[in-house]
């Protein structure tokens, strides 16, 4: 097997496993525990991909955590012209997101938090989407969790929703449903990690045990 083909196979494997292998949410303080339980997910950009990611994450957090999560409809009703562009924690975002957490417009987020009157705001940005050989689609996402009342950052993470497992010519390109499923799966994974690291996991019942 020549080195080019080996590199290709390794790259595909890295893309495939990167979704599950890396932490998607890290608290700023490892001993952090949530004090309140109300939360809103906010799309940081006013494009449809970002709104889709926010909706998916809202559903996932409702299902997998003890947070009382505002629906996207409630968010839109409370915030005029939602979604609007919020400067996010990145320097550039072309093929990958180049992180810079100092760039976030915290002032805007604080204003949003005050309007929504929630304990936590989880802001998601989807500034780029890449396609590898037409077969592997990745929606790149970066997110931050802010705590009231001063929009203090308590956690963050970068991840991607990946549709397609191989770029082999015999395998069809992922369709719309594959991409929707990838977004849903990614949201579930991240929501569970958020719940665990913030001490807000759902309590399992005796029957579930």
């Amino acid at each position: 097997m020549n080195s080019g083909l080996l590199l290709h196979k390794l790259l595909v494997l890295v893309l495939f496993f990167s979704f599950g292998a890396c932490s998607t949410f890290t608290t700023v303080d490892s001993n952090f525990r949530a004090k309140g339980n109300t939360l809103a997910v906010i799309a940081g950009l006013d494009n449809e991909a970002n709104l889709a990611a926010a909706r998916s994450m809202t559903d996932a957090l409702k299902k997998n955590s003890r947070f009382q999560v505002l629906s996207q409809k409630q968010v839109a009703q409370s915030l005029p012209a939602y979604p609007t562009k919020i400067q996010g924690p990145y320097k550039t975002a072309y093929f990958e997101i180049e992180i810079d957490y100092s760039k976030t417009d915290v002032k805007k987020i604080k204003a949003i938090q005050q309007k929504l009157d929630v304990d936590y705001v989880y802001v998601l940005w989807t500034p780029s989407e890449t396609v590898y050989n037409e077969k592997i689609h990745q929606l790149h996402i970066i997110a931050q969790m802010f705590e009231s009342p001063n929009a203090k950052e308590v956690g963050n993470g970068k991840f991607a929703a990946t549709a397609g497992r191989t770029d082999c010519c015999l395998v069809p390109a992922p369709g719309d449903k594959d991409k929707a499923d990838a977004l849903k799966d990614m949201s579930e994974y991240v929501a569970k990690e958020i719940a665990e690291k913030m001490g807000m996991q759902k309590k399992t019942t005796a029957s579930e045990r």
Partner: protein
Amino acid sequence: MFLVTDRDLPLNAAAWASIYPFAPNFPLSFIISFYYNLKILVQPDHYFRILAQGDTGMKKAVGFRISCLKIVLTAVGILGILAGCGVHKPFAPLDDNVQFKTGSLAVISGDSSEPTMVLTQFLTQELKQRSSYRVMGQEEIARRVGKYPVTIKRAAPEKQEKPVWFTKGEKSKLDAMQAQLKTDYLLVVWTANLNRSIVTYQRGGNRITYSAWIEGNLVEYPKSRAVGYSDFGNSKDQTCCLFGKSEGDDVNELLKDSAKELADEFMTATKSEKPAK
């Protein structure tokens, strides 16, 4: 520009044959080994529609749009592009009889993708500094228009050699913007197919190249008609990593160079370059 994919090799044998003269010293087997080792990352500028199953069981449309153009660039192909094979019009009038007047201009981002917005910023700066037009800043545009940028959808132009990229239906969005901005011209631009291509050499090592395609139209008011167009591609080898820069810096430089090239041709066509001090 040569568009060649893994599946299209047999169909594009003629294309390969046509670029071969540019690389007479490369054995054909060497070129084909380049071809099969090409890895492409494409950043789409569009969204694709995906369907998500809602709680009620009703399918809800949510939005991703994704580019469906397939691009494979070889090192030799890039040489072919730079040698002038294919379209390369940073700016040209749509009609040879167009009379450009001096006045005010707003550069409009044709969509909300990062590359298009960055290109628009660079182009605004170039024209503000170097042209005699009164160029409105991007912040001022956002303030006056409200929701900006908005996506101005493109469609295949009626005349490929003199393209008007937006449909009549989309033009109304530009007209609505101009009503707020009150400029004599709108120069709307889009980026397409921002690519990172990795060419792996048989003897080891690889070469990484970034490329993008830029499209645009100049619309004059009050006649509300397109009078100029842009249709060109640019590429740049990766220089980050070796010199401590980031990949984003390389892409920014590609977009900045593209903006400069468009601005140069625009000022030549409109005779609007400021005299040197």
